[in-house]
């Protein structure tokens, strides 16, 4: 087994009745990088994570996690996961529950209590340590679930929708926590929030209807250097596009779905100096207002184009 890969799947399939949640999947996820797992609803992201963790058994094919079968005893406490729909026990405070989980992870009683407090602090829940799960909001429970995934020193961390249901400030906080872990563990993030994937991941695995659509570095999927993505206040007209294309530095223009108001302008790599200023000038000349101005393409547009 190649030690450069944290996860290897071979012809992996999971079938529910006649329906394939994952079908003939061959994926190799590199160690010590952060990989995004994306795809439209029903693509098989959560199923793949569940197969990796041994929550469900494959109908066919194999999964290899850190050189082991998913349920191998040697993997215990080396892999952690933020599961999507798991609930904490009722009637016990989150501190007690995290302490119990830390004990099961191999911490001694006192050290487990300290570890529980450490991870609660990481997710800004130290003041809620004595609260029962039934007294906490959805966002707080999500943060508790993230906290349990950060306990100890897992070599592989799987995060299923880590920012779903979190407010923007908490999302930034969680992103910072994940960034801190990036050189210490292999991280796999499944999310519909593609800006989180873009900000945190080096590679993406794109699934569609249970099959592998693409597995590449993010830079190979979305152009980072020779494009500018603009979110306009109004969708561009054909006349405006003709005018824009007339600029000598413009190589191509891609427009999003009608109403999306998104436009990607590809430019000549030889003429990069002041290109943003030039584009802003053209926009101003044509009376086109904008809301966002981003260098490079966005994953969001790639996904929208490919999974309409």
């Amino acid at each position, binding site marked *: 087994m190649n030690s450069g890969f944290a996860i290897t799947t071979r012809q992996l399939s999971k079938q529910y009745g006649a329906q394939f949640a994952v079908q003939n999947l061959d994926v190799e996820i590199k160690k010590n990088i952060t990989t995004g797992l994306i795809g439209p609803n029903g693509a098989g992201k959560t199923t793949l994570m*569940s197969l990796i*963790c*041994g*929550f*469900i*058994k494959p109908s066919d094919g194999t999964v290899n996690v850190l050189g082991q079968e998913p*349920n191998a*005893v040697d*993997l*215990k*406490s080396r*892999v*952690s*996961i933020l*599961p999507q*729909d*798991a*609930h*904490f*026990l*009722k*009637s*016990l405070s989150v501190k007690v529950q995290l302490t*119990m*989980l830390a*004990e*099961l*992870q191999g911490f001694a009683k006192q050290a487990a209590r300290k570890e529980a407090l450490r991870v609660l602090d990481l997710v800004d829940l130290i003041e809620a340590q004595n609260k029962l799960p039934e007294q906490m909001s959805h966002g707080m429970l999500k943060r508790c*679930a993230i906290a*349990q995934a950060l306990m100890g020193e*897992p070599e592989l961390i799987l995060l299923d929708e880590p920012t779903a249901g979190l407010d923007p400030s908490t999302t930034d906080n969680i992103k910072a926590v994940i960034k801190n872990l990036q050189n210490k563990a292999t991280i796999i993030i499944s999310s519909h929030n593609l800006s989180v994937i873009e900000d945190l991941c080096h590679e993406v695995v794109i699934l569609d209807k249970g099959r592998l659509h693409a597995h590449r570095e993010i830079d190979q999927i979305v152009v980072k250097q020779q494009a500018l993505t603009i979110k306009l206040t109004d969708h561009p007209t054909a006349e405006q596009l003709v005018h824009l294309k007339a600029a000598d530095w413009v190589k191509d223009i891609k427009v999003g779905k009608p109403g999306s108001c998104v436009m990607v302008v590809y430019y000549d790599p030889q003429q990069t100096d002041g290109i943003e200023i030039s584009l802003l000038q053209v926009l101003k000349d044509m009376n086109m207002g904008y809301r966002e101005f981003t260098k490079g393409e966005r994953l969001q547009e790639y996904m929208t184009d490919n999974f309409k």
Partner: protein
Amino acid sequence: MTLRIGTLKKIVSHDLYYALRSARGVLFLVFFAVFWLWIFTKFGHVDTGWLKSPDSSFILAWLFDAKTAQSLFTDRHPGFSLYYLIAINTAPFFVLFAASDQTANDIGGQYLRFLLPRCLRSEIYLGRFIGAVLLVWMAYAVVTLLAMLWVVALNDAKLTEVFFDALWMIVCLAVYAVPFVAMMSLCSALVGSAALSALLGIGFYFIVTIIVSVMGFQSDLLADVIAYILPNTMKSELLLFEFGALIKAVGVNVIYMAVYFYLGWLIFSRRDI
């Protein structure tokens, strides 16, 4: 079945800790305590000495065979034996209830997804089983000791007379309860809620009991065979207070426990979570 003893111990201790704080555990303890308090209040009004008299032999001979009746009401304090009879006959309901949530809520609430990256399925399954067994054993040990003190205080029993019987009863009730806990391991591996698991276990117990009773009118042999599905066939042996009968009951109940436990394990180890 791979097991790490340290992890198993932690799961068992967490299970017991949670049992004493969860709605399910507290509900069991409240029902159990209220039931026995009610029974104990009746002890003061019952002339248990009558059970030892020749007048009662007619009724007792109808309920038990002569050997069991003598063992229960002549050879030992009848009041304490009365407690034992009530305890062993009500044990299935309390045990099925107390042991209903072993892995059921773990499955339903997907709490197993927090446990599985840290523990093996075998450790979780066995840990929950041992936790339920210990909870039931503790409950019956405490109530038996209370019953002993009660008959000493209210029914003129001597402590020396009932002490060893109390220990014997604790052992017998422990032996009797374990296969029922294993039966609930199977039920809770099948469903995703403790309430549903309790309903399944108690419903199964009732249905088989009714079938056995009805079949008894048609064919004793068939009724006896069907009765072996439930793990209470050794009750009569456990009422004899004989070492040989106890050993036989232990042997048979170990088989019951192994069968139910293994069937539950087959489901739990293969099921998607």
